């Protein structure tokens, strides 16, 4: 299970800074973690003053913030800082473009998400006043990382006082070896789906045996569809507040051209997203 002891937040003096900072401070306090702020660029008095002003206004941190000022390419600087300072969690703010419902990850955030050495939390709607987290959706993929991710999800749901967790098993259409073309094959496919669903449920329930989840409303939902896409769409439909996913194993150039798994979600963030390394 992931323990987030050291949290990093990138400080860019953008209009979103205040909200991002407030969220990061709240999360650090909830997790009992240390907060590190890194600014890529010159350290000027003006900027320092601005930051201090914001910090004065923000809720009190349990352990004081550590700030790092460094010049360089944003992606590299943040990556290096993550490794050097043993960061457990990187918090990034996403951009919101065009109409109300769609959020996109900027190029820097995307790059970091793909290559970060630690877990990443992407916030689509950082808020100055706390918006309580009511529903967490976590993936239940058949993957060795899943167990750890689900455990982390429950830990976080406890810390955030979130009472509802849904585990989504995405089952790839390819796993269902039957193509529906007429009544007979449809019947076969429906039965096969039911069987696969039961098998996946048992697998997830096995993981859950090790977890204390008495206090949460737990639901296991199986979805047949494109991996990585379905869970995002589901989170959007169910209006989840946080989506927790396994970190992708490896992303190559080809995966960006033909998006898969996490890339779908990154291209159109449905909710806040935590990627557990």
């Amino acid at each position: 299970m992931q323990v987030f002891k050291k949290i990093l937040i990138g400080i860019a003096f953008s209009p979103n800074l205040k909200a991002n900072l407030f969220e990061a401070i709240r999360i650090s306090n909830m997790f009992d973690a240390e907060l590190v702020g890194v600014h890529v660029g010159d350290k000027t008095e003006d900027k320092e003053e601005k930051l201090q002003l914001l910090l004065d206004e923000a809720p009190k941190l349990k352990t004081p913030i550590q700030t790092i000022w460094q010049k360089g390419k944003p992606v590299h600087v943040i990556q290096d800082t993550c490794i050097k300072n043993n960061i457990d969690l990187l918090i990034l703010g996403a951009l919101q473009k065009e109409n109300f419902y769609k959020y996109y990850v900027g190029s820097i955030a995307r790059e970091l998400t793909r290559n970060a050495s630690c877990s990443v939390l992407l916030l689509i709607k950082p808020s100055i006043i706390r918006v309580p987290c009511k529903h967490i959706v976590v993936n239940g993929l058949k993957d060795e990382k899943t167990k750890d991710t689900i455990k982390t999800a429950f830990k976080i749901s406890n810390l955030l006082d979130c009472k509802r967790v849904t585990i989504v098993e995405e089952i790839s259409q390819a796993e269902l070896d039957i193509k529906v073309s007429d009544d007979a094959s449809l019947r076969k496919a429906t039965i096969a789906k039911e069987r696969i669903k039961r098998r996946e449920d048992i697998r997830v329930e096995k993981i859950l045996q090790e977890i204390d989840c008495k206090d949460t409303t737990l639901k296991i939902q199986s979805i047949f569809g494109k991996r990585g896409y379905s869970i995002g769409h589901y989170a959007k439909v169910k209006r989840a507040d946080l989506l927790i996913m396994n970190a992708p194993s490896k992303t190559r150039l080809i995966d960006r051209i033909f998006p898969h798994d996490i890339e779908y979600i990154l291209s159109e963030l449905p909710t806040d997203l935590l990627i557990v390394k």
Partner: protein
Amino acid sequence: MGKVNSYKVFARDIPKNIFSGFVVSLIALPLGLGLALASGAPPISGVIAAIIGGIVTSILGGSNVTITGPGNGLVVVVLAAITTLGNGDMQQGFLYTLAAVVVSGIIMIILGFLRLGSLGDFFPSSAIQGMLAAIGIGIFAKQIHVMLGNLDAKGSIIELIMNIPEGIKYYFTTDNTSVFYAGSVGIISFLIMVFYSKIRNRYFQLIPAPMWIVVLSVGMHYYYQYFSDAAYPIEKAFLINLPNDVLSNFAFPDFSKALELDFISAVIGITLIASIESLLSIKAVDKLDPLKRRSNLDKDIRALGLATVISGFLGGLNVVTVIARSSVNVNNNGTNRSANFFHAGFLVVFILLFATELRKIPLAALAAILVYTGYKLASPENIRKVFKIGNEQLLIFLITLITTIATSLITGILVGIISTFIIHVSINKDIMLFVRNLLKPNVLMFKEDGKYFVSVDNFSSFLNYTKLKSKLNQIPENEDVIIDFSLCDFVDHSVMENMNNYVETFKRKGGHLEIIGLDNYSTRSEHPFALRKNIPDFIKPKEGVLTKRQKSLQKIGAELNLNYLPDQKEEITELPTFGYFKARQIIKISNIISNGQCSLFDIEFSEGEMIAKQIIRASMFYIKIDKEIPKFTLDKEGVFETIYHFTGFKDISIENHPDFSKRFYLSGKNQVKIKELFTDELVLFFESNPYYHIESSDHGLLILGKERLAGVKEIKALADFGFRLQKIIS
């Protein structure tokens, strides 16, 4: 159904199918001859296609009551292919075209194996309509001249149409008796086609109209031969020409032009039309199937491809599934594939036994049948239907129609697709919506509480319809399905039409499919298939246009003797007093079904502020209560999300009802009064009914299910629950 049992049923039904196969063959014979003639091919080639098609697809096909044979859609492409490939030499052109037919058959087989049978789904339906109408006009323009006895009319479709008045004049003024008599036979035949359905005589209706034409024209020949002194007034050139020995004179395809551009474009055209016509027909015939079976499209396409290859090698035309003959099959109680087989068998018998008689049929008689088919394809009725859906659909229709007539079929359909896309972009004023999301998956389907829920994102049009279709096809048709389009910015006419087909299919097979999330869309007409664009909240939708869901709500209202108001006329002023709406901003209330005491309504509200704002639409039930009641909330035990804001509320357990306390989470401040309110009767009511979230204000109760718009079935359940609760509580 077990295998043995199904064989028994099959054997039991054979006599029925022999009969329906016979009736179909009566139509298939003249149509086969006529379609081949209209295509510029030897008449026998159409009958060969019908025979091979009937035999091969009945054995290997994937559909049940379809009839296969030469199709009317192909007439125009095949004629064009024969003319261009033969450079004026029709005989040689036909041999080249046979090669194109063989190649197109091979492509169809490959498409079937690649499961691309659904190729037709990529074409917007108005463009297909336009293309079919163009084909109809093409057939009509050429055949009306033949019908009037003029075999030499040539030229482009437009020229042929312009020449029609002249053709009529020629018929009346000619001194060539053959032309006059052939023309007269043609006109009488045409009148038979037109008035056949209007004559209500049982014996007359026993024989289908095309067969009447054949019988009467052959009869006329015999009349002149045996009873009249005069010679038969129509020359041999005006009669059908069949080879002397039908079984040994097969034409063989000539592949020497296989790499030329003309040949390739002929192959593309033939394959395109053959697959579109077949798919449309199979889908349409499935709706007629009395046993409600679902056809295996890809298997059928493979079988049609194989039949086409064989037919091409034997000198026959393409084999496609044909709707008119198939519906005759269903109407005559055809129940399985053997009907198609018997139809082929009877055709063989006719050709072998009656070849001499068939040679006596004037071409004009067959042309009359085709003029009628052509008119049906392009009838003003069809144009009116398209216009009703919306004027942008009419524009697409006309663009495709005119381009197809003026250029070629392939150009026509391409222009149709492109213009549809341009119109979609201009309606949305946003090309990025399509470009960015075209290749992304946009459909989510999952099963929850025994119901299927399908949500569609971004946009849904002919461009990405296959994604939605492949999900919907995986749902057994006897299940409950809700399709939610509320995340979609744009839904086009092709999708709406297909959704409507799904609604019907589900209804027919005992399921229920419902479309939600379209209430807030703007439409361009009142037609249920009109395209829909999601509009921002500040623009009011056109008054008086109700969506299907709204119409169902109106009906529910009428059934319950309640008022239905699609738009907010009177506010339910008490709503903001509920705890639920403390942190939520009500934007709009619509679709109110009310009797003053109780109201059922859709509500739109927002959560959060500024960029964290989310807009939610849900269905709720409100009960006004005259006496004062204590504030409480009631939920399924374990669902905390809706009540987190009620700090200071405690879980209250009702004595003597441990089961109720275990299953429900009842909370409120004034414990004593709440316990007074929850009488045994009320507790029993909650225990024995589905869960809803219920909360009270001082003078009212609010009931809500899921935080989304309810489907019609769910609305009914909610209404029933609400009204019964109201009776108990007041």
